[in-house]
């Protein structure tokens, strides 16, 4: 991770220099070949992801399209791009879960559901709609299913990790297999599968299955891990953290029980790269799930991993897992308190290397738009535990961020997309250091559709 940190500084310098060199036009013709200058003072690619409407406005089920432009064009409000008309349709039956290399030159995709669900493909970014497939096909479906939950680890674009959990309720029939009246619920067995994928050579690296155990009390009360996601590598690179969602059954009937108490947020900790010896750690600060949705939910910063939680009755928190691989309960960062709001819910987020992050969230003030609750962006400082709503970005009821996936980090700058469902919007660039917000290229939208980020 240290290496990355250095890279960020370097990249910042490159970007600043690049910004001065590259000109922009209304009709961008992104330069597919890097500047011949051996000194790589070149703007990086910014790949915009757009999700077309399927049946319902904002459902994003009508195809995921990507389109790239360089970072200077992305920053230029006179540039206008139309990914729905000119983009590349990512081969995924449902919304693709995209990842990009740290330099933005490669897009990684694992197809979600459908006939090729679980297939890994990578594309070199060559500007506009040109994405050239590289390497051979490999599928992680045999290990983690055809609708895999996967994330690229921050190890220099070497590895991707995907997870799967299968659950089975266990009962004691009390020696009378035909009589249900004396049966008792024991626990729910949650079997976890974790697979790691070599992103460079397109091969499977490791796969392990293990049982996830909660405390005896939690298990006898009917709690179990029902969904896992968002594997994140710790700073030392020897543990993998996996976010979890808990569900509960009524031990009396074995039927699902949605009214139970919400337990402290939990994370599964595994040895890396062996993927063995899972343990579950529990927070006393945050409650609710840590499995996120479609964008990365936990990041390494300064030796610790910071993780957002969702569905917390006290509003989303950013939790800290220290270098000892345990929750640091002395770190209390409530988004409700920091923003002075209620019911804050982190939808997606991303820190820059300086510990300052952009958070996409909804809260009690969100209006209900065509596709659900309205979203906002905030600038967050992990060290100071402060958060500030970004007011330079326009918000409206149909601006919705639930499916938001990608932020591109370029030094201290974080790129994001802003467009209400069915309306045009823009790329915005947040300078996390100064808080300055720059309105960038226009994003041309189509009816019922939205943008889900930049890579």
């Amino acid at each position, binding site marked *: 991770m240290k290496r990355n940190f250095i890279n960020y500084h370097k990249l910042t310098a490159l970007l600043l220099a690049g910004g001065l060199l590259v000109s922009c036009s209304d009709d961008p013709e992104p330069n597919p070949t890097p500047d011949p200058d051996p000194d790589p003072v070149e703007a990086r690619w910014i790949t915009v992801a757009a999700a077309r409407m399927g049946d319902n406005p904002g459902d994003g089920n009508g195809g995921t399209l990507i389109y790239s432009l360089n970072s200077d064009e992305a920053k230029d409000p006179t540039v206008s791009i139309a990914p729905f008309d000119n983009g590349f349709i990512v081969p995924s039956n449902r919304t693709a879960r995209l990842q990009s290399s740290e330099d933005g030159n490669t897009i990684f995709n694992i197809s979600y559901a459908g006939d090729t669900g679980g297939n890994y493909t990578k594309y070199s970014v060559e500007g506009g709609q040109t994405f050239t497939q590289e390497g051979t096909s490999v599928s992680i479906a045999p290990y983690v*299913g055809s609708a895999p939950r996967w994330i690229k680890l921050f190890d220099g674009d070497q590895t991707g990790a995907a997870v799967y959990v299968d659950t089975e309720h266990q009962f004691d029939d009390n020696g009378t297999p035909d009589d249900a009246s004396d049966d008792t619920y024991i626990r729910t067995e949650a079997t976890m599968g974790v697979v790691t994928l070599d992103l460079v050579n397109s091969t499977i690296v490791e796969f392990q299955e293990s049982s996830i155990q909660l405390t005896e009390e939690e298990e006898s009360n009917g709690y179990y891990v029902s969904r896992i996601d968002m594997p994140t590598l710790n700073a030392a690179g020897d543990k993998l953290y996996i976010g979890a969602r808990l569900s509960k059954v009524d031990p009396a009937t074995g039927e699902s029980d949605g009214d139970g108490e919400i337990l402290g947020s939990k994370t599964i900790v595994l040895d890396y790269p062996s993927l063995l010896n899972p343990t579950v750690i529990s927070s006393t600060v945050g409650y609710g799930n840590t499995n996120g949705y479609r964008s990365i939910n936990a990041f390494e910063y300064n030796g610790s991993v910071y993780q957002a939680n969702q569905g917390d009755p006290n509003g989303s928190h950013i939790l800290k897992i220290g270098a000892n691989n345990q929750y640091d309960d002395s770190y209390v960062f409530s988004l409700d308190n920091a923003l002075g709001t209620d019911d804050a819910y982190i939808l997606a987020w991303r820190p820059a290397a300086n510990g300052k992050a952009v958070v996409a969230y909804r809260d009690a003030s969100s209006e209900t738009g065509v596709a659900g609750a309205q979203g906002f962006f905030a600038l967050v400082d992990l060290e100071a535990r402060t958060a500030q709503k970004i007011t330079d970005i326009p918000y409206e009821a149909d601006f919705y961020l639930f499916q938001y996936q990608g932020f591109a980090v370029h030094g201290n700058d974080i790129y994001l997309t802003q467009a209400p469902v069915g309306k045009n919007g823009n790329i915005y660039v947040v300078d996390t250091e100064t808080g300055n917000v720059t309105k960038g290229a226009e994003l041309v939208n189509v009816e019922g559709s939205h943008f889900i980020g930049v890579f």
Partner: protein
Amino acid sequence: MIRGIFLQIFCIFFLGLSTSIAQSGNLSGKLIFEDGQPVTFATVYIHAVKKHGLSDESGNYTIQDIPFGKHRVQVSSIEIEQNEFEVEINTDSKTLTTTLKRSKDTNLDEVEVIGESYKTEIEKSGFAVNVIDTKEASLRNIQTNELLNTTVGVKIRQNGGLGSEVNYSLNGLSGSAVRIFIDGIPISAYGNSFNLNSIPPSMIKEIEVYKGVVPGHLADDALGGAINIVLQNSTQSNLNASISYGSFNTLQASVNGLYRFKDSGFTVKGSLFHNYSDNDYKVSGRSVVVTGLGGVQTPIEARRFNDAYRSSGGIFQIGYTDVKWADQFLIGFTGSSDYKEIQHGAFMTIMPYKDRFMESDAKLGNLIYQKRDLFTKGLDININALYGKRNRMVSDTLAWAYAWNGEKAIDFRGNEYEYSWRSQQEGGPTLSRINRDVASARTGLSYAINDHHKVLVNHVFSSIDRVDTDALRSVLENTFRGTRDLRKNILSLTYELNAMDGRFSANLFGKYYQQETINIDPDIDPETNELIDEVTSATTKDEGYGFTVSYALLPNVTLLTSAEKAVRLPNESEVFGNDGDNVVANPSIRPELSNNFNLGFRFGRFNIEKHDFTVSTNLFTRNIKDRIGLPIETSLNVNDEIILYENQGNGTSKGFDAQVDYTYNNNFGVNFNVSRFDLKIVNRGVEIDVPNTPFFTMNTSMRYSFKDLIQKSSRLNLFYTLYFTGEFSYLVPQGSNTVGDEFFKVPQQIAQDLGVSYVFPTDKLVMSFDIKNIFDKPVYDNLSVQKPGRAFYLKLNYRINNY
């Protein structure tokens, strides 16, 4: 009067109505022209005893039970001048050949009316309806579903070969919008083992396809139309048997027979069928690969290895036919079972299934009672009821992973491995069983006030009590799993008007729907700690109505128009949810509604010398409101354990069907049809084209008959069929300049079949040979799911009529 003749002709032709009288004989005759050509499909009528016969393709006809004595016989046909001759019946069976004059000055008005078959009559009734005659198909190697697929406006989408899951689409509406009936009984009563995949065409007399507007006698909540399978209901003694064998180890056999004791009218009727196929056809494509070390994929051409299908079943009925108190009174038993291996889920993925299969069976008692002129002339009654059990089981317990080469797959380390989910389909092992008690009764009463006015009342009751269990779940879990019962009552009232000498007919109907869904959820009483059943029920009521008008603008040009406000009631999952999928009850969900309109013309039949042709077209719109669907996932519900069905936006389907039938000299025939539509839905104000819909289809079929080619009085028929399906995409339409679209496309498809059948001189034995998909083109109904390539089938039929 004309209507009366219709009915009688109809009775003769299809019911073979006859009564038994002592001292009577049968007349077996042959009608020929002066040049020796047979007079086909002519009506032969003995007025004095009101007995009819109809000549067949060879000019042969039979009239049974004619009292001894002299009789005046009238013959009428489109091709002859009306003719009369005398015959004396004085033996048990009399044979006679009559030579008739070919008609020179055709009186079209009269000929049209008299020459009209039941098929034509229905097709001209005003409904957007096609009647599919199974007579020819039953002698060939043709599945019932294939026959439907060549029908205009109908698209069958099948997820593989024989026995695989089928979805029916009528003018763009599909799924639960299309209801299927067997003799007017909803097919849901019969289940998987007795359906269009298993019933051979020889057991079926005809299939009626009603598009958008469904007549009152087929009462169900059919939003987009109905397919009614009319099983053989002749009361003439007959026996036919067939056996077919072909590619993919496909064996199909059927026997149908009926014996009627002439004196008592006691009738015994039975049908048996058996189908088997390995379905091991070759497939290839982006997901047909084997994986090696590290997960490296190698594409292969594979044979499907877990796709076998077997279905067997039959109907046995006894009772009385054509007796004083009943035209038909039959009680019987329908039994069927099937076994279907499942090779993959909705898509072909790199993980083919091994040993996942489904079994179903049905055991049903049935009762039929039909009587015309009950108590008084013009009052007809028709009762059809069944009661029984049907069961379905899905088994998936094998954890080992298999590859497309049919062998155990290896993981990235090179070892054979088991899936984390311990089953073939993701989601865990299952031995789930659904047991249903089903009952369905259809009652129809019609009264013809006179030749112009008729009133019909129909009622359909159906009930399904369902119990779900899974042997792999604990007894406790099975105990607390809810059960869902469904009772449906649909009442319809129809008024039929016939005026202007049959040139104008109208049909006005209203339907009343009532559905009760009962939810039994076992729970523990918090006070007594005892197991109690929480019973809740919800009742949905709605009304629908519609009309049809048929008007002959000219004798050969008929305007057909129909409209209906159609209703689809929410099904049990939509009302009560589904425990397995975490869908909860929404008792306030409203039915889906659709306003359906058809406007059609029928031109024909025109005869120019030996050329006959008919052209028919239909323009249609379907306007659906309150579509039922699941809500989209949002941050507010993503972690909810539960979701519920809701009424969403609207939808429209607009398009046209057209069909041309041409025959030359009765031995060359061409049928061409085309169907095209636009299907759009509107949700929250945004309209989109519905993806994954084959919206453009065309079919052409040709037939040519040679007579006496190999043996004298034999017949050789050649058949050719071409199926065309336009390209369609799994994704909603994309922008003008996007790339990557081809991944989601189902390409344009053209498949061609060839067939030959040989009718041996005695007319008892028919042999057929068919080649399907002669050019071995890849065909898909669903994205990447390949259907069988070139296949060969041979079939032998043996039939005896009138023994």
